[in-house]
């Protein structure tokens, strides 16, 4: 993981924390709260410093990493006319929205859990601008437009100026470049202000290690800046340098992502506690072909090959990998999880189930040691494996592979399991062909 999305609220909190340092000459109020239900909002309004929740007209919207909230009718800014939403109305609206699962126009389904509530900012369309920055290829690109609002994507080519900034560019060159590329549509009285803000915005984006930062729209009223909508991703590998500069921003999972199955969660938990890498994604619990592949690269070529040789992925039950020298115990746990899933259902078409125990030639993982964990798992699941007609295909190389292959063959033979075993002289994915052709 490198680039990870954060909530709009956290993005604004980061702006607020560093505002004085980066945006001298501009003001930003940071009147935002993040709540999960109506009561929480009501309670917040009683706290010192949040009196504005009772005094001002409000805007409420979900803060869960998805965009196009206006088009999805998920922005509350009016009851009868724009700018008349009270605290109580906002709280009630939130409770309404969390009561049922919703479906976005994009098809994503899920339950809303987090909302950002802010004051309504009366302003004219001309006061809305667009600004964003991200990395394209090896360079940073700053996007500037005199037209903000959610329609910016329509007519992007005409409306938006791109400023490409290389990694070695000096501050004065950057300032010069931004000045030369300021959008024509910015009114003369705001031009200098916009240039100054754009320069500061870029440095803020750069120094705080954002991977993506977009304000759409940003409303300029004199020197008052209103960040109406914000999307941000951080480069999480920079986390160790940023400390609390990121205000403890969390990285939530995307809205509508299916919840992990208990098995996937268990493997993810084991992964987080181990120095080794353990990954499991169940693609089709009824699937015929199950894989237990060592190594990130190898796991991809096995999945590729299964799809290529089968012509589709309907038979592929799972994707995953174990690598980085897992212990025998960790390997056994991983194998138990996969074998348990595999033996729950018979193939609906009555075919044998296939277990691919694959891997490239290991650098330094002791093959015999990891296979010991898999053999222990065979002992537990042998009868269930026979019941679903499991055929096992093994291919592996690396330290101690001869012993590993011999051990697993002997164990399978002793347990009465069908097995074919190959070493580095056989092409890494050729066992997929063998398994499918039989």
């Amino acid at each position, binding site marked *: 993981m490198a680039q990870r999305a954060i909530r709009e609220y956290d993005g604004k909190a980061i702006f607020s924390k560093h505002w004085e340092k980066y945006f001298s000459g501009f003001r930003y109020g940071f009147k935002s709260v993040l709540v999960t239900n109506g009561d929480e909002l009501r309670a917040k309004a009683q706290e010192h410093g949040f009196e504005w929740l009772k005094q001002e007209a409000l805007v409420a919207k979900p803060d869960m990493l998805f965009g196009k909230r206006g088009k999805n009718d998920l922005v509350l800014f009016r009851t009868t006319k724009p700018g008349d939403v009270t605290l109580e109305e906002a709280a009630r609206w939130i409770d309404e929205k969390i009561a049922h699962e919703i479906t976005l126009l994009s098809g994503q389904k899920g339950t809303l859990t987090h909302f950002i509530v802010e004051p309504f900012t009366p302003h004219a369309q001309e006061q809305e601008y667009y600004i964003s920055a991200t990395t394209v290829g090896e360079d940073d690109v700053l996007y500037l437009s005199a037209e903000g609002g959610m329609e910016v994507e329509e007519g992007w080519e005409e409306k938006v100026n791109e400023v490409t900034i290389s990694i070695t560019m000096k501050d004065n060159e950057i300032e010069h470049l931004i000045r030369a590329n300021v959008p024509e549509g910015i009114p003369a009285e705001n031009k200098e202000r916009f240039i100054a803000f754009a320069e500061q915005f870029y440095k803020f984006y750069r120094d705080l*290690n954002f991977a993506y930062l977009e304000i759409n729209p940003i409303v300029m009223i004199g020197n008052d800046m209103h960040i109406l909508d914000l999307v941000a991703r951080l480069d999480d590998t920079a986390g160790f340098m940023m400390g609390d500069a990121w205000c403890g921003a969390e990285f939530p999972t995307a809205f509508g992502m299916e919840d992990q199955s208990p098995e996937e969660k268990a493997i993810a938990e084991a992964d987080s506690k181990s120095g080794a890498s353990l990954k499991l994604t169940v693609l089709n619990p009824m699937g015929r072909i199950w894989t237990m592949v060592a190594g990130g690269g190898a796991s991809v070529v096995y*999945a590729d090959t299964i799809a290529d*040789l089968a012509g*589709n992925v309907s038979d592929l039950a799972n994707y995953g990998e174990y690598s980085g020298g897992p212990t025998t115990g960790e390997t056994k746990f991983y194998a138990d999880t996969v074998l348990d899933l595999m033996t729950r259902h018979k193939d609906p078409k009555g075919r044998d189930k296939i277990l691919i125990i694959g891997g490239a*030639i290991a650098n330094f993982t002791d093959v015999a040691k990891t296979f010991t964990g898999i053999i222990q798992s065979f002992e537990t699941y042998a009868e269930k494996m026979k019941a679903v007609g499991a055929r096992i295909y093994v291919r592996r190389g690396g330290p101690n592979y001869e012993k590993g292959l011999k051990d697993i063959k002997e164990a399978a033979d002793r347990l009465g399991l069908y097995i074919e075993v190959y070493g580095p002289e056989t092409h890494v994915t050729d066992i997929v062909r063998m398994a499918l052709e039989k």
Partner: protein
Amino acid sequence: MGALFTKDTQAIFWNNNASAIQRMLDYDYVVNRAKPSVAAIVAPTSGNKFEKFFYGPDEIMVPIFRNTTEAAAAFPKADVLLNFASFRTAYDVTMEAITLKGQFKTVMVTAEGIPERLARKMNQAARDAGVVVIGPATVGGIAPGAFKIANVGGTIENIVNSKLHRAGSCGLVTRSGGLFNELSNIIAINADGIAEGVAIGGDRFVGSVFIDNLLRMESNPAVKYMVLLGEVGGTEEYKVIEAVKNGQIKKPIIAWCIGTIAKHFSSGVQFGHAGASANADSETAAAKNTAMAAAGIYVPASFNDLPRTIADVYTKLKAEGIVVDIEEPSLRTVPKVRRKKEFICTISDDRGDEATYAGYPISSVATPETGFGIGDVISLLWFKKRYPKWATDYLETVIKTVADHGPAVSGAHNAKVTARAGKDVISSLVTGLLTIGPRFGGAIDDAARYFKYANDHGMTPAQFIDYMKKEGKTISGIGHRIKSVRNPDLRVSGLKKYAAEFFPSTPLLDFALEVEKLTTSKKDNLILNVDGTIGILMVDMWRALGYSEEEIDGFIDAGALNAFFVVGRSIGFIGHILDEKRLGMPMYRHPTDDILYNVELADEI
């Protein structure tokens, strides 16, 4: 351009990753490299000066430095930095290496998860400096038969099976490090192995990309064709397509992008590297495979067919006479069982026909016609160097000067008392030697240390005297019980005269004589004494012989100066002991009237 590494390539290894270094040295031994591929280790927090490694059945010492700059200064020809620092420090380590202009041609970075902005800066700085960065997030690369980075290739058995022990004719570039081994094996089985291979690394921003490596291989005559293993995501493969189309690359390329599975899943499933996801249709594995095939690159129907494609291209090149048969080289084998040595000796060796002193057979230094004196023997065995005559003469002068100072000094007195108690020569001698220390004979070390310290720190003679006063220390090497300016110590006069005539220069003595001017103006007997003169001139000798200040400080700290006193004065002690034996003097008992008795009844507590 041309080959990335040769059989003479040496690396500096940043981080004392002993197992990876041992694997490199095992490889070096097996492929008959003349010199180990690791010249030095950088380990900022290590207290050791070297680490022992096996080189075949024997052990060798690889020096350890605190930073890259020092290691590079000691090994100016080591032009590869293997940066095994963590993701927190890998950037700084690479940047330090880049600033050492002309030192490093290649920097390999293994850390995964360097902040993207730092990785971009690092890669750009390297490009601007003409340094090839391999990685980050890679196992590295290999030039079979010449140089292997760290863990690439796995075990020695696998290296030989995958023909990574000698150059073949394929250039291999992969993103994945895990599949690098596998590809080498496939190429060994279906062709004749690789001539050079690089895993460019799995992070989003890597230093050298596919095209950089393929262009280098195009210009390397040992490479006859290339194998490229790409991945879903990114557009680097299109640069390769461009180079093939415009004729920059003429050698055949066999290529495949892994991750074709991704097209079957709309989203949510992350295949392989975190960075390996397509942001556009053109970045999918299928699109890249199609585009590469259209450009005339050999693209198999699936990864499973890759071996056959490689075999076809290889057979074709062989039929055309472009690839020729390789003569398999003879290899050395690393013993299965090796025992670490408990002791190390770097000064003499008794294993051959004749024992040697620092490489000189004893017979070549012992007899008068060899021209070697005891000073030469000392320079060989103590300092592992052959000193010029003026220096060995000085060493002998010192030994002769300190050989004895009469029976009354405490060391000689102890030796005499012990001899009279009926003990043997060794016991009596040791009793005398044990007396040598801070008050007796130890002033040579301290004089050298303090005068050198003052001189190194640019103190004036007056500042030095002030400094010693503040430290509450008398100045070692200054002052004599009897001798004074008007009654000079002729031993000192002799040493000074010798130095003036034969030493190239005597900066520390000159400084000490300035100090002496000030001290003797206060008190007549505060002269530079014989201990001080010996120690100070020893420093001047080492400076003139070209030792660094750190090395000289090392000699002083190790006690090498007192050692001259020990050797010299042993001659005198033995003289006194033999004298006692000859005289047959009885057991000595000190007269009670020479002792002040002041004993009170002990209090009860």
